């Protein structure tokens, strides 16, 4: 195809994408109107309550941290053709391991040391959790989409057991919570704002993953395995080791996300500490086509949408969960586009 035609094609695609997303927004407006809200006021609330004001923008960024890292945990195995639905469970075990390490250490060591210990514990736990599914896949051929999904429930049950029983805060209000992380072990704030170092760590990790996937032999080999496992095998690539490594790295990222969310924002282990962000992250990775930079962008968008529910509840008297409709529409919109374009999902 001549270059001129290809460019034209690109333009048409862009216009089609814009139309489809505008359609999704319009559809959401209709839903809002049906629920008795004013779409215009709802849109203004959503924008104001997430990105315009300083504090809310900061919360959007902070909540995007676990989403982005759990989304990268989906993206890395996806390069090798694996479907990791276990971001939620890997976030949880990361938070659990970080809690265990952080609360046990307390204030006995300087802050940086405890941050490091918690990070290693969280990432290690996440890697182990995803690695379990990876092993089941490479050794027994068990479908990793199923095993990672089921392990989410196991992880949640382990966490609930701990905070209802062993780790329950004796001085707490009777709520099932762990003891809080001592101040010295909490992640440091940035420039006196609500933001903490987790945001910078996430950016650095995403950049590192971009580089690893794009510029190393490992990243290339993952693409080969994901694109055509039979060709990879015949080229003598260690297919099983590559599959397993992608799950380990992915799990470590989500585990780190769980740790950062705990040590920077939540500070206590509590039920629903992840706000189900592990599942939203799965969608973010697909929306970003498993490319680190786009995935992080999608995570930010989803973080903002998820948080805007609070604003809607307060200002517009709508149920906060209405934003789930918008989330679904945003994720579904690209499917309309791919119908005509074979090959690329989303």
């Amino acid at each position, binding site marked *: 195809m*001549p270059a001129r*035609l290809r460019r034209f094609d690109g333009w048409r695609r862009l216009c089609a994408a814009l139309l489809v997303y505008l359609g999704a927004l319009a559809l959401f407006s209709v839903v809002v109107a049906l629920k008795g809200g004013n779409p215009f006021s709802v849109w203004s609330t959503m924008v104001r309550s997430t990105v315009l004001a300083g504090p809310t923008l900061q919360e959007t960024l902070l909540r995007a941290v676990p989403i982005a890292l759990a989304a990268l945990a989906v993206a890395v195995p996806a390069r090798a053709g694996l479907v990791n639905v276990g971001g939620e469970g890997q976030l949880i075990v990361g938070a659990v391991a970080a809690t265990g390490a952080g609360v046990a250490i307390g204030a006995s060591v300087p802050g940086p040391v405890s941050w490091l210990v918690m990070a290693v514990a969280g990432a290690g736990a996440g890697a182990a959790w995803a690695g379990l599914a990876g092993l089941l896949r490479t050794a027994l051929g068990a479908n990793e989409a199923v095993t990672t999904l089921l392990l989410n429930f196991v992880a949640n049950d382990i966490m609930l057991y701990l905070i209802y029983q062993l780790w329950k805060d004796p001085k707490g209000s009777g709520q099932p919570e762990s003891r809080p992380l001592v101040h010295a072990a909490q992640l440091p704030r940035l420039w006196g704002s609500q933001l903490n170092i987790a945001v910078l760590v996430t950016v650095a990790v995403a950049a590192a993953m971009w580089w690893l996937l794009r510029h190393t*032999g*490992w990243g*290339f*080999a993952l*693409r*080969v395995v994901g*694109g*055509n496992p*039979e*060709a*990879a*095998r*015949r*080229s*003598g*690539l*260690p297919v099983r080791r590559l599959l397993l490594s992608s799950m380990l790295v992915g799990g470590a990222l989500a585990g780190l996300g769980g740790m950062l969310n705990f040590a920077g924002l939540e500070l206590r282990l509590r039920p629903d500490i992840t706000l189900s962000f592990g599942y939203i992250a799965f969608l973010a990775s697909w929306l970003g086509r498993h490319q680190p930079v786009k995935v992080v962008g999608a995570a930010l968008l989803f973080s903002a949408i998820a948080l805007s529910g609070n604003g809607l509840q307060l200002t517009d008297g709508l149920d906060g969960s209405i934003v789930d409709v918008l989330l679904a529409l945003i994720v579904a919109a690209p499917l309309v586009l791919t119908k005509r374009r074979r*090959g690329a999902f989303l």
Partner: protein
Amino acid sequence: MPVTSMPVTSPPVQTGTDTAAAVTDALLWVDGVTKRFGSLVANHRVSFHVHAGEVHALLGENGAGKSTLVKVLYGVHRADEGRVVLDGVAAHVSSPARARDLGLGMVFQDLRLVPALTVWENIALHAGRAGRLLRPRRIQAEIAEVADRWGLAVDPAARVADLSIGERQRVELLKVLMSGARVLILDEPTSVLTPAEVDALFDVVGRLRADGVGIVIITHKMREVRTIADRVTVLRGGQVVVADRLAADISDEDLVTAMVGTTVEAIGNTHAGGGAGRPLLQVRGLHVRGAGEGSGLRGIDLGVGAGEIVGVAGVAGNGQRELADVAVGAARPDAGAVLVDGETMPANDPAAFRRAGVCSVLADPLREFVVPGLTVAEHAALWSSAGTGRIHFDVAAAAGRVADAAAWAGLSIAAPDRRLDQLSGGNIQRVLLTLALGERSPVLVVSYPTRGLDVLTAETTRRLLLDARGRGQAVLLVSEDLDELLAVSDRIAVLAHGRVAGIVDAAGADRRQLGRLMTGAPADGAPGDGAPDDGGVTGRRMTGRRVTGE
């Protein structure tokens, strides 16, 4: 999709002297059909005539526009210009169903039967007789009658999945004939048949011709033109270059030249003789359970010496696939071993085989070689990394190497930054050949090397194989093309039902002898000498294509 960009100048059309008379009474007249796909012209003002009681061969290379043309005829594609005239009346063929109503029957290359259904169910489905009430007995009786009339012996109650390819083709023919076709289009009908099955098919075609059916047979095999065709039309680059010529009036050389556009010098096998060097590749007592429709291997012993080409012949699905896989370490045999240069190789370890110097032209490049999204250079880097034991890829260096190898081999390949999965089958094959042959490894396992290639590149490829032999490489050549095997092999091993039915010296071999071995008959067996039926010869379909211009 055989889409060819339009040549700048039209080649001169050679027309038969009797064309003017032919127009009036033609059963089928294709009149100036043009079909474009975007900016590409697949057919440009194509015209030809088919008469009742005549076999008309439509010749052309891959991409010449034959398939597009018949799809236009059959109502799959709509022509942009031109018309189809049936019995002197312009026909509006808007869909395959309409084509069938008009009396146009089509037997596709990839037979369109439902394997899980029986023969009669398939036919009822096609002939539109699966209405509200199925009347199995009546349909079966009808089938038996038609089958008997045309000599198409087949059991109406048999499940299609249990039939051989030859039998399936008979069902397909029955299906078309029972829907009352007056014009029959056969798309490369012989590509997967044994020589005996080809004879049987041509026997049926002969009877149909005698009964006044007009037959269009698409092919690129000169032998078939000579055996069965009354009239020939040649397509090149989407245009007719030889129109409606009587087959008797045109020589093989002229036909090949018309198809290719230049004269092709067929290589002659030098058959160096003198015996092969030390055995570089040996398989011993190989047993592999067949996967899918394949027959597997049931005890194979074979050796290829340095400076020798051993051909492997057989009807598709008789163990060739399994043999090639085991010989490159891509499959684990149930019993037996592969030895490279005397060393027993670890089974199912492709990297070890590469380290030992075994390179392979893979049987199914799309499944086994092409990684979606990667460029030619990236594939080259992947290829070079195999066997190094390291996960390290130097794409820039590989791009240079593959370009050098292509220049050395005399194969023109796509630019290194092109995505391989977006190239045509022939272009993918050229990249694969460049990588595999450019390595100059001691052992080459080559499967269907010329599939999808144009005549010139196919000849270049065969020459490269002979060069490899000259350098002392050991070559195992799996092919379905007997002419190709005879042209380059020193010895030919014939596989039937997973066993070596015989190994013959290529220099003294003839097609009939090989054909007999392919059906599983003993090499020197008299006809009827306990030859097993070929019920087991159900092959995966291969689409081996080339022009045989002998």
